[in-house]
């Protein structure tokens, strides 16, 4: 069985909610829709307080290419447009809507009937994906249309669908592949048409045997789609790791998947694209896995964007006394939340609740130079060195050690026998080097523009003379 070649770890997968089918959560009384749910520029609200909105209506417009539209997940009245306290405690602007009924905007197909025939042309598909505000649903929330727009001079040779869900606990993609297999397959076909590729691979880890079987059975009806069962290993869901696992190509340092002819999309994104293209439905709801050992009933829910996390927890039997940490996302890459009155956003793939024993971080001890972190790093970096350089703020050295290649998977921190917060420090250094690189790029751009303006002025002068 295939897997990626460098590093990797084997945490317990703990897929507690794998057997629980997707339940539709009732629409809450009020939703908070943040205007920044994606990587890139925040969207600009186009509704006013007091406006009546319908489900699926555009309420915030994308600002620029790397940004995404936001649609109303409910029907009702805009109550406020103001800041709310996010899961990390910082304030962020959001559109707050009081729910009244559930009246959908016109032109959206809300039936469950499956439409297989793809009528749109590739350019129209990409435009539709952009219009409907689709972003990467695996958690990175990168606007999907950007990845689908292959830059000139480059060619996509293989489409890779990420059904790995290597993050422990989470099962939302697993349930999706099991229950909405047909739709996912059509979604893959749509993407293949948009990118003009003849071959697609769906990578699924071997702990989801039923999903592999389901999609393999369906793939006999869909030409060019291959289901690739993968050996269990974290972080297989990382873009670069998955490309290596499926088509044995390694993305060079500083390059993008498209440079080796691959485009990677998450299965959740594929399903959202199916709904956008075939049903004209914007991204207003998603599957969220609510899981954790202290919970009475770990479940998978289909929820509207903007629903408070509190209501999801209540639906699993409430947050128990023994819960010590609530994490937005999975235990490896997720972030602990300061409070639970936080809305579900496009990138919320799961909510993991941890008890005291699992949540506690051990005190940091000295590095014993065992190099375990080096052997597990899936990017072939030296985490002990990067974290030390970061502590000393030696940014030039960090850059030379390719800190920007770090995918922040946390394998190093997970494996460290001295419980050193390796990733925390690496992330800090990465942020600082990133800021330095951006400043350099901006200065270069400004200099080039100034030179261009100067040359043009000179040209004009000579023309006048």
């Amino acid at each position, binding site marked *: 069985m295939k897997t990626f070649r460098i590093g990797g770890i084997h945490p317990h997968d703990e897929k507690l909610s794998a057997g629980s089918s997707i339940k539709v959560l009732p629409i809450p009384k009020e939703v908070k829709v943040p205007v920044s749910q994606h990587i890139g520029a925040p969207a600009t609200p186009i509704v006013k307080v007091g406006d009546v909105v319908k489900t699926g209506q555009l309420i915030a417009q994308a600002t620029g290419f790397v940004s995404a539209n936001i649609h109303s997940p409910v029907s009702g009245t805009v109550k406020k447009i103001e800041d709310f*306290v996010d899961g*990390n*405690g*910082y*304030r962020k602007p959001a559109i707050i809507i009081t729910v009244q009924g559930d009246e959908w905007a016109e032109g959206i197909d809300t039936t469950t009937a499956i439409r297989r025939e793809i009528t749109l042309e590739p350019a129209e598909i990409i435009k539709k994906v952009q219009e409907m505000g689709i972003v990467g649903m695996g958690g990175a929330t990168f606007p999907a249309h950007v990845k689908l727009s292959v830059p000139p001079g480059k060619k996509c040779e293989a489409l890779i669908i990420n059904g790995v869900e290597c993050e422990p606990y989470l099962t939302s993609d697993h349930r999706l592949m099991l229950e909405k297999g047909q739709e996912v397959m059509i979604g893959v076909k749509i993407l293949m048409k948009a990118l003009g590729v003849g071959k697609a691979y769906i990578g699924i880890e071997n702990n989801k045997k039923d999903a592999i079987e389901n999609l393999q059975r369906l793939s006999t009806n869909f030409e060019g789609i291959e289901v690739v069962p993968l050996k269990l290993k974290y972080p297989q869901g990382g873009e670069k790791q998955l490309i290596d696992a499926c088509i044995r190509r390694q993305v060079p340092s500083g390059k993008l998947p498209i440079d080796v002819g691959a485009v990677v999309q998450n299965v959740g994104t594929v399903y959202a694209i199916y709904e956008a293209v075939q049903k004209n439905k914007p991204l207003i709801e998603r599957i969220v896995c609510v899981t954790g050992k202290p919970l009475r009933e770990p479940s998978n829910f289909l929820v509207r964007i903007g629903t408070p996390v509190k209501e999801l927890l209540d639906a699993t039997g409430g947050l128990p006394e023994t819960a010590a940490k609530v994490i937005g996302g999975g235990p490896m890459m997720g*972030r*602990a939340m*300061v*409070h639970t009155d936080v809305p579900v956003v496009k990138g919320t793939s799961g909510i993991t609740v941890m008890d005291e024993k699992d949540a*506690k*971080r051990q005190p*940091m001890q000295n590095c014993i130079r065992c190099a375990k972190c080096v052997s597990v790093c899936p990017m072939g970096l030296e985490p002990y060195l990067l974290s030390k350089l970061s502590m000393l703020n030696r940014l030039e050295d960090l850059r030379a050690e390719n800190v920007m290649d770090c995918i922040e998977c946390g394998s190093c921190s997970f494996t460290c026998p001295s419980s050193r*917060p390796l990733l*925390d*420090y690496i*992330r*800090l250094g990465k*942020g600082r080097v990133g800021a330095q690189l951006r400043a350099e790029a901006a200065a270069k751009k400004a200099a080039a523009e100034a030179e261009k303006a100067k040359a043009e002025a000179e040209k004009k002068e000579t023309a006048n003379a």
Partner: protein
Amino acid sequence: MDVQFILITVCALAATGLIAALILYFVSQKFKVYEDPRIGQVEGVLPGANCGGCGFPGCHGMAEALVKAEDLSKLMCPVGGADCMSKVAAILGKEVTAAAPKVAVVRCNGNCAARPKTANYDGARSCAIAAAHFAGETACSYGCLGCGDCVAACKFDAIKMNPETGLPEVDDEKCVACGACVKACPKNIIELRNKGVKNRRIWVSCVNKDKGAVAMKACKSACIGCGKCAKECPFGAITVENNVAYIDYTKCKMCRKCVAACPTKAIHAINFPPLPAPKPAEQKPADAAPAGQTPLENKPAAPAADAQPTKPQDTKAAE
């Protein structure tokens, strides 16, 4: 024969030496880099800590800037202070206009009692990392994180965490106002302010930009932006912007009227003799007072209710 051989060798060597010396002399004349001899002298007077507190890369950079400068008032060695600057002025034959010495001031007084914890952080003990993860262990997203990046940044051992309050404290004597802690703080809490006569200083010890009610709920000693201090100030030194007051130390005349007017005791005055009327204004009692008193009186979070506890103080101050 032998003597002649030795003579030729000696002459040839001498001639080569002479030619080489001449070439070197002309080349050094042609490509001479003139360095003002005063730069070396000035550098000798500077402390040589190379801390970068003056804004130049080390003491040599500062010395070059000092020699080049027309007027010394804008340049100041925070480590050497006025003594050092007067020596520099003597070398350069210029007058030194003594720049007021500065000191680092911590603008957060949300101690453990005033700012209840809403979350626990057990990650890496670094403010920069904590700030990247989340807003802080309390509901105030502007306040001190308490991991001590400022303490680690200080090369002069002048800033220490007080385990009782969980806040950093600056040692007036040791602080040279190099600004390393200001740069290290991810929340921009630390500011360099005038040291003041006899180290007396008044400042708003809060940077919370939330609206009054929200700030009050998060921290009992937060500035709620009520503007009472600005109204009270006879010199127009206080401005309220984004729900937080700021005292301009160049305009402040240290009358301490604002200190009495502040309903949440967010304005701190230290190293003053006790006022005739209410309380001693030494640092520790001033810090402890809001924590001990306000919880009982200021329970309602609405800003309107905040006016109540201040009234008796106002009248006392007027007396």
